[in-house]
């Protein structure tokens, strides 16, 4: 079954957005809500265009993307490899698990002062907080993915003479990949939250900084522009991760037919 863009479908998916934008435009324009607090979408769009033409938009988006990607990629690399080790070697897990249970309850925001203390106010501490927030869901879902691999698949491969390397790379890793990607998708969402927090606490660039700074200097339209752009970045990241997930777990969709 293909995804068909029927006119009804297009209507259904746009009608809510259009109604929302209309209401948002009307409320401040009609003076029902103070336009000083709520800028209408037309003004927000204007602010986005201004930011784009001055080059500030690119600067902020670049800074935010760099931080979130750096933090997320580090979290994926380390979370997946540690998770695989912990899921595979029971001993590694029993040693590290109590420690990790404690750390995962430690809020990334609470640790920010520590990161600043050690890593300074620059990029490193921001990447560290994003890393911390994204790391845990990836680690935990990788561990559970490895532990939940169907024992029958392992036994079957063993009975054919598979060695540990084959078991790990050709059975455990693909079998665990759906669970790993669930963790990565979740990490994508956490990563944006941590990004905003980091950029609001101590930064001179980035969409989080833009949002808070605009409010402080009472540039309300560009404050809303910052919020909107953060949402766009979040959507974009989720979309990218969903693509990646599809690439690696296509066999689960049941849509591919041979020929």
């Amino acid at each position, binding site marked *: 079954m293909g995804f068909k863009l029927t006119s009804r479908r297009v209507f259904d998916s746009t009608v809510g957005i259009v109604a929302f934008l209309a209401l948002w435009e009307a409320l401040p324009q009609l003076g029902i809500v103070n336009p000083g607090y709520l800028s209408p979408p037309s003004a927000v769009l204007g602010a986005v265009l201004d930011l784009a033409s001055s080059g500030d938009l690119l600067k902020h988006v670049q800074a935010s993307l760099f931080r979130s990607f750096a933090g997320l990629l580090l979290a994926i690399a380390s979370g997946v490899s540690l998770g695989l080790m912990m899921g595979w070697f029971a001993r590694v897990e029993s040693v590290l698990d109590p420690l990790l249970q404690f750390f995962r309850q430690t809020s990334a925001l609470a640790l920010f002062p520590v990161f600043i203390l050690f890593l300074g106010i620059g990029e490193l501490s921001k990447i560290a907080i994003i890393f911390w927030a994204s790391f845990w869901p990836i680690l935990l879902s990788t561990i559970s993915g490895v532990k939940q691999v169907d024992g029958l698949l392992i036994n*079957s491969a063993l009975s054919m*003479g598979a060695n540990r390397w084959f078991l790990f790379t050709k059975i455990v890793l693909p079998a665990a990949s759906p669970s790993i990607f669930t963790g990565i998708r979740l990490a994508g969402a956490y990563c944006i939250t941590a990004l905003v927090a980091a950029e609001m606490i101590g930064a001179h660039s980035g969409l989080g900084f833009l949002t808070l700074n605009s409010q402080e200097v009472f540039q309300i339209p560009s404050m809303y522009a910052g919020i909107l752009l953060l949402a766009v970045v979040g959507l974009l990241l989720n979309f990218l991760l969903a693509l990646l997930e599809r690439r690696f777990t296509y*066999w689960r969709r049941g849509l591919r037919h041979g020929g």
Partner: protein
Amino acid sequence: MAAPKIIARDLSMEYQARDEAGREERVPVLEGFDLQVREGEFLSILGPSGCGKSTFMNILAGLAHKTGGDLLVDGKPLQGINRNQGVVFQGYALLPWRTVLDNIAVGLEIRGVSKAQRLETAREYLELVGLNGFASRYPHELSGGMRQRVAIARSLAYDPDVLLMDEPFAALDAQTRETLQSELLRIWDTHKKTIVFITHSLDEAIFLSDRVAVMTQRPGRIKEIFDIDLARPRLPELRNTQAFVHYRQRAWEALRDEVTDITREPAAAATHQNWQSIATLGGYRIGV
């Protein structure tokens, strides 16, 4: 006569468990298990579920460890996985992320066969099990019977001497099951392997085998072995002949005591229903 392919001598297997009071206890699964499997024969091990027949197969496959006795394959004590054996499980055990063809080629891949060569071999076995045109399907797109065909092709593709089959057709509906039994005989006829076939179905064991070994209740051992002197090739109609019914009655008589004993034993309450259904089934069949 040639030396037996597989010899199990006074084989035993037990595991530690905690009883209801939390005390450690030893649970014997196999005890005094003796069996000889001849080269090239089709031998079925028949027993009610829970009697330890799958445990024997896991030991033979190298997936479980015996706790006593001897187990020789080709005259040598079995150590770890025997690469000359193929195993077919009831649950198919196909890799869901691989196409049918790539699944069939797994064993060859493990043996380091080149990609071109293993896909070519896999195609031969795909054809053997009658699944031409399904090469690039994924397992979830196939029916249970087709999945088991893939699993059989996979275990044959690396050309083992012995095929171990652990209730391979138990999850299939009656028609598919009978079709696959005939298919298996056809394949066995062209690729002479030694087959050890685990089942709890009297009909299946008799229809397929040269010899049927009946097991006792747990702790399991071989109670009785008898030859099935029915001519081959065996056609489905064979099931309705007088000779077949005779063998069925004989097998049921051997099995019945084990089943009825168990139903009287309160400790086996968890599997009670299981025994009963077999007893009913057997009773019904004898009445035919």
